């Protein structure tokens, strides 16, 4: 697997920002009342993420270390403003339903996190693909939460009625508590799948990868938080 596809795989599955890294929880919980909102928010963030990763990676040798955070924010804020205007101009309905959360992409921790931990240390092309992977991972996360919430809470998917007319929607799922229920259930589900895969010997995160320690590591769900030298991964704590 070359570096670029590895980045996309990393963002979508291994370090999925929504289900594994648990980043960007504020938009994740707030805007996913329907699938279309989820996909809109995800794609807007993806666009910003790709552009900011690219520019920050280009400027990584120019930006002094001591002022890197303000510099990143300026870059991100510029792209968010562009996306904000584009959405307002071309998809006003989505713009209305996302509301405040579009400008808030500026402080989305996924974007700053990727700028800080990847784009500012790596060449341009992998940084772009890192943005694509992370953005798509975020989009997939938001869309799947949105689909489940919309299906249970309104009986629809992407605004199309899929449940029979006799179905009584559980309104709580399109309200705030539903976001927590669905997010928790989906995270539990993906942990279950990952653990099953890890038991079969596939996709075992080697402890040596955890350079930064377990607290900072996105894979601690899969490795059980062990800081051991064991490379086999057989010590997965059930």
């Amino acid at each position, binding site marked *: 697997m070359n570096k670029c596809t590895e980045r996309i795989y990393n963002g979508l599955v291994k370090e999925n920002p929504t289900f594994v890294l648990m980043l960007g929880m504020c938009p994740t919980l707030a805007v996913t009342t329907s699938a279309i909102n989820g996909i809109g928010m995800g794609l807007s963030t993806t666009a910003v993420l790709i552009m900011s990763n690219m520019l920050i990676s280009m400027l990584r040798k120019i930006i002094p270390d001591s002022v890197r955070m303000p510099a990143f924010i300026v870059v991100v804020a510029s792209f968010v403003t562009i996306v904000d205007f584009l959405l307002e101009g071309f998809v006003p309905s989505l713009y209305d339903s996302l509301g405040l959360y579009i400008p808030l992409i500026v402080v989305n921790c996924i974007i700053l996190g990727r700028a800080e931990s990847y784009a500012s240390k790596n060449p341009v092309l992998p940084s772009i693909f890192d943005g694509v992977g992370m953005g798509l991972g975020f989009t997939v996360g938001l869309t799947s939460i949105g689909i489940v919430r919309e299906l249970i809470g309104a009986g629809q998917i992407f605004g199309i009625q899929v449940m029979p007319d006799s179905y009584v929607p559980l*309104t709580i799922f399109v*309200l705030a508590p539903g976001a927590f229920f669905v997010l928790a259930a989906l995270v539990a589900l993906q942990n279950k799948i990952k653990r099953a895969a890890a038991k079969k010997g596939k996709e075992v995160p080697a402890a040596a990868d955890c350079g930064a320690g377990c607290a900072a590591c996105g894979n601690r769900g899969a490795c059980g938080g062990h800081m051991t030298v064991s490379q086999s991964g057989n010590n997965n704590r059930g």
Partner: protein
Amino acid sequence: MNEKYRVSSSPHIRDKIKSSNIMLMVVIGLLPATVFGIWNFRHENAWILVVVTTAAAVLSEYIYEKLMHKPITINDFSAVVTGLLLALNLPPTLPWWMGVLGSVFAIVVVKQLFGGLGQNFMNPALAARCFLLICFTGQMTSFVYDGVTGPTPLADLKAGEAVNTMDMLIGNIRGTIGETSVIAIMIGAMFLILMGVIDLTIPASYLISFVVFIVIFGGHGLDPQYITAHLCGGGLMLGAWFMATDYVTSPITTKGRILYGVCMGLLTGLFRLFGGSAEGVSYAIIISNLLVPLIEKITLPKPFGKGGER
């Protein structure tokens, strides 16, 4: 030297009381209100909802524990108590499957996912009631009595209309299945107090602080009719005697219990007088449940010799 020392870890003194005894007594304590509710709403066939909801609670506990390979704990009656309490908190005309959904939510999400009996952070029955209330607001707030739909006495009271306090005491009024009869609830509560299952601290501090709030902010001063109507209306009595006193979700120390009761009293008064709907007991209790860990923290007794002047 044939005598052997028996070495064991604490606790060394054990009582005969088990969770199942206590839960069984709570079920017995709930029986007067249940029987009255089923009789009161006989035209609405309330017994079906009670039976189905209780059975669903027990069944979902059994199925969850079976699937998760945990010890089966349905014999301790705690699921029966949860299911029965939930049923008593539902309007008699609610479709039976909504009761089942509530039971599954109470047992699986609120109780089992947090670790089973003793680990739930809020009262499962009340959490399920609030879940249903948000999901199916229409069905959960439509109250029928003798085939006539209308407002509960508490809603009448909020609208400023006259209510019959005697009817509210006896219970032949609109409301959820188990909340209508204050007399039936008090018979069950007396039984629990006499058996030593619940103590007076929590209900007393709850009701007293609620009355104080009503007197100050209710706009009727010390009008006994108004205060009695508020005390007998809605789920206040059921909540104060049976749900606020839940062992798992109430504080341990007396000081903490008083604080917890005052919390519930003030919140209930606040929701009833200034809130959007006429009733607020269930929200008041679960919010206070969430405050219990904090209450425990500030009322933690100091070990002898610790603390004192600094």
